[in-house]
């Protein structure tokens, strides 16, 4: 199948935001390695990080097939303005409560996104989506288990998770910032659109949140943190990129 320039641009915009999200949250999750509150959580966050980085590699490879730079160059040599990740994934890990709630909110959106993309008309992406959604299922399962345990745990654990949820919810809504090519993507049947995805996400997470003795923030408080998809980021992203790319940039030609 051949695409017009605009269509190709639309597909690339979609791929970049998905894979940039995965790379950055993968990096954040990897920062729990050695620091997890219990050994199992240390391993879980490290494994989830490894999955997300592998998944971002699969999509950077696909972008490379579409004439973008190599995965290493895309991951390590771009500056913050060129990244299309949402603000949610950029924030430092903070306490475990924030990291866990972020992981819950993000992984559910990712799971549903790849379910939609598994039906995409863009075949190279469909194949990858079919594979990745099987992996992400475990991320969601892990997040749900802990949300239920801590939401339904002690007064303190419940309060802390509720607070983390209140603090991260508008950041999470930023995942669904509309792109410049929503109509093109849905006309081509490549992707149904951020609005559809956000509605599905609310439908799925609401009952899980409520059965965990927690409350979804009221709609009157929703104020999505947009800008990431257009290259406008929080102050945290460039610092993360500096650290993540530090070794690679010393010698970009080195063989590893």
């Amino acid at each position, binding site marked *: 199948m051949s695409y017009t320039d605009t269509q190709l641009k639309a597909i690339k915009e979609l791929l970049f935001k998905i894979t940039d999200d995965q790379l950055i949250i993968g990096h954040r999750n990897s920062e729990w390695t050695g620091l997890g509150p219990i050994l199992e959580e240390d391993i*879980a966050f490290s494994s989830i990080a490894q*999955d997300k980085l592998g998944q971002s590699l699969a999509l950077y490879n696909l972008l490379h097939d579409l004439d973008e730079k190599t995965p290493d160059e895309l991951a390590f040599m771009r500056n913050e303005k060129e990244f299309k990740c949402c603000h949610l994934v950029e924030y430092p890990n903070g306490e475990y409560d924030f990291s866990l709630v972020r992981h819950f909110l993000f992984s559910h959106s990712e799971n549903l996104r790849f379910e939609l993309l598994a039906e995409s008309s863009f075949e190279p992406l469909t194949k990858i989506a079919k594979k990745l959604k*099987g992996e992400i299922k*475990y991320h969601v399962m*892990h997040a749900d288990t802990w949300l239920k345990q801590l939401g339904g745990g002690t007064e303190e654990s419940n309060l802390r998770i509720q607070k983390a949820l209140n603090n991260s919810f508008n950041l999470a809504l930023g995942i669904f910032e509309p792109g410049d090519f929503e109509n093109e993507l849905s006309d081509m049947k490549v992707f149904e659109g951020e609005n559809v995805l956000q509605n599905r996400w609310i439908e799925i997470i609401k009952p899980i949140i409520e059965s965990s003795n927690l409350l979804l923030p009221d709609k009157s408080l929703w104020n999505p943190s947009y800008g990431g998809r257009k290259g406008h980021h929080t102050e945290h992203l460039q610092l993360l990129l500096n650290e993540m790319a530090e070794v690679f940039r010393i010698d970009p030609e080195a063989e590893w």
Partner: protein
Amino acid sequence: MITKEEILTALEDVKDPEIPTISVVDLGIVTDVKIDEANSVSVTLTPTFAGCPALKILENLVKERISRLDVASINVKTTFDVPWNTDMITEKGRKMLKKHGLAPPPMHKGIIQIEVLKYVKCPYCESTNTELKTPFGPTLCRSMHYCHNCLQAFEQFKPVG
């Protein structure tokens, strides 16, 4: 001319670096073998997990093993064309996992619920009086469990759809 069967037989020697009892063939990751008129061989692998660190090593091991056969050239690539799932592990592969002390993944036919992780059959005593400790283990493909019957911690090669 070499045959596809000969290639697959040779590839039974190539074991998963993380689980050395199971071959790439029994793991189900060899998704295509092509031989052209010039006796050049192309092998397609599919990743178990996108983040599996053994992907490059596996490509090289496959290449090395086939280069010892009478072939003109060998090309190995890894693609998502046939997405891997644990139902692709052969019967023999399941036995080999067990031999390595890993509970084999149940056949799931595309539907995986958390329940399949809960009462996994212990690879040592066959009891299902077991408990899921965590869905993440020492490698991406394993979950960790505990058997209340023989009081033994064990791992499962977890089902992936």
